[in-house]
């Protein structure tokens, strides 16, 4: 926070050199993940396409672990004035690249920064008690974290585009309001499920923040590492847990093979239990296609909530008035 004055000074310098030299040129912003580009789009509003040229590196449904930069992505990064990325090592070694780019005067901002500064990250590393600095990067699944990220990003954008600082902060304020509404709705929706059943079982450990935000317990069959592989005892443990807690449904993410969860179901069934696998995937690292409901942050989160609640066999509470995007009707039924 104390850095602000200096940063502002520096940003102004950058801005002057950018906008004063070529006033007609749009400011080029690159956002890495779909979540980041969604946030920047919302904060900038009408500026995108006019004064700001925004490029999202990861398209719809692209898993950041497996993302392959294309030629145009590289070109976009080469011309960027500012880069907004997720952070907490979600982009892997690109962190070091962003650090290097900063030395050239390019503005780079990890939208997870305020979450990290507030200490609201989950440490993933459990081998030693002192070491908690390897964070779970899926911080956006907690809408409260996303509020912090919105504020931080708005601040960074205002420094980049000082002449639009007012509209940006207005957008941020409105959006934070929306996020709070969303959070309230999501908590309400998820508490329809009886308390003893509030366990989210997934194939991959990506939903710690999600569960924390909505008061659910989360059990992933596999850890955060994409290299982690399940063993027989892992399957047995989850199956035993499903039986013990009498959980009726488990979930699969779009980016992981459903085999392992299928094996858990068979294990439960063989033990005389009953458990279903949700007919629809959850969004984990990637969001939906642009234009779809799940293609926005709010829609993505709400869609996950709706899939979970309806898979457990309960109805969703009404979608909050005026919260955009409007939840489409087809989400209210499961195919």
């Amino acid at each position, binding site marked *: *926070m*104390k*850095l602000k004055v*200096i940063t502002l*000074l520096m*940003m102004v*310098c950058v801005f002057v050199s950018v906008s004063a030299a070529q006033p007609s040129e749009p400011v080029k912003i690159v956002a890495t993940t779909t979540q980041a580009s969604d946030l920047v789009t919302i904060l900038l509003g009408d500026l995108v396409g006019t004064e700001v040229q925004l490029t999202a590196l990861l398209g719809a449904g692209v898993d950041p*672990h497996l993302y*392959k*930069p*294309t*030629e*145009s*992505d*590289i*070109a976009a990064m*080469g011309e960027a004035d500012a880069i907004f990325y997720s952070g907490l*090592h*979600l982009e*892997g*070694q690109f*962190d*070091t*690249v962003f*650090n*290097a*780019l*900063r*030395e*050239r*005067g390019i503005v780079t901002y990890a939208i997870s920064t305020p979450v990290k*500064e507030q*200490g*609201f990250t*989950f*440490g*993933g*590393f*459990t*081998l*030693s*008690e*002192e*070491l*908690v*600095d*390897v964070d*779970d990067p899926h911080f956006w699944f907690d809408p*409260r974290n996303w509020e912090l990220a919105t504020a931080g990003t708005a601040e960074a954008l205002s420094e980049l585009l000082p002449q639009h600082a007012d509209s940006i902060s207005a957008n941020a304020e409105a959006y934070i309001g929306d996020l709070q509404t969303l959070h309230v709705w999501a908590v309400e929706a998820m508490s329809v499920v009886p308390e003893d059943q509030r366990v989210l079982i997934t194939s991959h*450990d990506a939903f710690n923040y999600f569960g*924390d935000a909505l008061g659910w317990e989360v059990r992933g069959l596999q*850890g*955060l*590492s*994409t*290299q*982690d*592989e*399940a*063993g027989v005892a892992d399957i047995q443990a989850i199956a035993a847990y499903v039986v013990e807690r009498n959980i009726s449904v488990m979930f699969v993410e779009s980016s992981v093979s459903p085999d392992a969860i299928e094996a858990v179901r068979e294990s439960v069934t063989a033990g005389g239990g009953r458990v279903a696998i949700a007919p629809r995937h959850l969004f984990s690292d990637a969001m939906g296609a642009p234009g779809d409901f799940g293609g926005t942050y709010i829609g993505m989160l709400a869609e996950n909530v709706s899939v979970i609640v309806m898979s457990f066999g309960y109805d969703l509470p009404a979608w909050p008035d005026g919260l955009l995007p409007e939840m489409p009707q087809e989400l209210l039924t499961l195919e």
Partner: protein
Amino acid sequence: MDQVLVSLALNFFSADQINAFMSDPRSVATLVGALVAISGALLGTFLFLRQMSLTTDAISHTILLGIVVMFLVMTAGFGLEPDMSSPLLILGAAAAGLLTVMLTETIQRTGLVKADAALGLAFPLLFAISIILVSRYADNVHLDVDSVTVGEIGIAWANTRSVCLEGCESVIITPDSPQAEVARVCANCVAENISPRSPSAVFVENCSNCGTYTAAQAYANGLSETTPTLVFLPKAALTMGIITLINLLFVGLLYKELKLATFDAALARALGLRPGLLHYALMALVSVTAVGAFDAVGAILVVAFFIVPPATAYLLTQRLSRMLLLGALFGALGAYTGYDLARGNLLGLVDMNRVLGWLDGVVGLGGYTTWNVSISASMVMMMFVFLLLAWVFAPRQGLIAGMIRRRSQAVRFTDQIVLRHVANHQGHADESIELAVNTLHEHFRWSASRLGWTLRRLRALNLVHIEDGLVRLTERGTNAVMSLD
């Protein structure tokens, strides 16, 4: 090292010129690609000849072991802050590469297992061990090869080290500095398995940005008001430059020894050259080069640089020195043209966007016809294209050359076979049987028309004539047969 390099370069170019070159994605990708191509060709050629081409692929799997072990040693062993950017992890990866090739050599040296199977035993085992370690001890860390290596040649231009020329004052931030920032960390969350949002979470405050900053870092993080003059050097170009230099020295100095050890290990041993030691040294270099290159350009590109250009060169020449040269050349060319292919330009001949457009019309791609693809993969594709071209068009071993040769040989052979046959039997007792025009084709197992055609040609060339229903050589024909030998 960087300083020396930069001050050397500054004798020829201005800092702006260097920066302009080094920040062009294409020039840096080509430069790095060329460096990896040279290293790959130098070492890959020997792997190719020793039939161990898949070594680099095996290493690409096993470096995970080095990364995991180093991570665990750093964190659990020494209590260091886990840092995915630590060069120690790359060092661990190199050690794992070394372990892979050493294990393979050792298994192979028992004489009980063949080379390919030895490799196929070593790398699944090491990989399996690393998966077990990840699953047991680090399954909640985003730990994989991608998170430790940049592994993308297109981004090499941006992953730089800076050398400061002017305004190079370092900045020290202490907790008392006005710029010091405070970050909170939950002190009891992991131990008590609670959320940092829970009321019982206890936080400690840390200075998150304290430490010593170089001028460039201070500028980057807004900690200084001066703007230093910087020259940016891509890390990949630096590491690969050094590795290439070592490889050039190794192969250059030990060229004849390596050649002998590769083609005739027994003779090399008899001459006191210790081919075993040489192979271990070669394999050690392979693993170091491969790991360095994985970080710089990514696994698939390294595997390709080590195998495809040497194989292409092999199709064009049989001389080791030319193989090394051509291999490096094709690798570099693949890097250069591959960059264009990523933009949709195949050798300046084909616009891939049009191909997609056409495909969309034929099979339907949902109207998405923008060719915008991975640079690394495009480079591999171009190397593969060169291999295919060499396979098809190579002047001596190529498919077309072979076909043309067979075709033209067939004609030439046909003529010569007949001439020789006539020469062999003319004037012998069996000539009435062997040389009869009507039955001659049966001796060759040819169709009558093929022989008729051949005879017509030979007669037109005044090489044979027909006498009493027997084929006979003319004087010219006799001379032609003599000159065949």
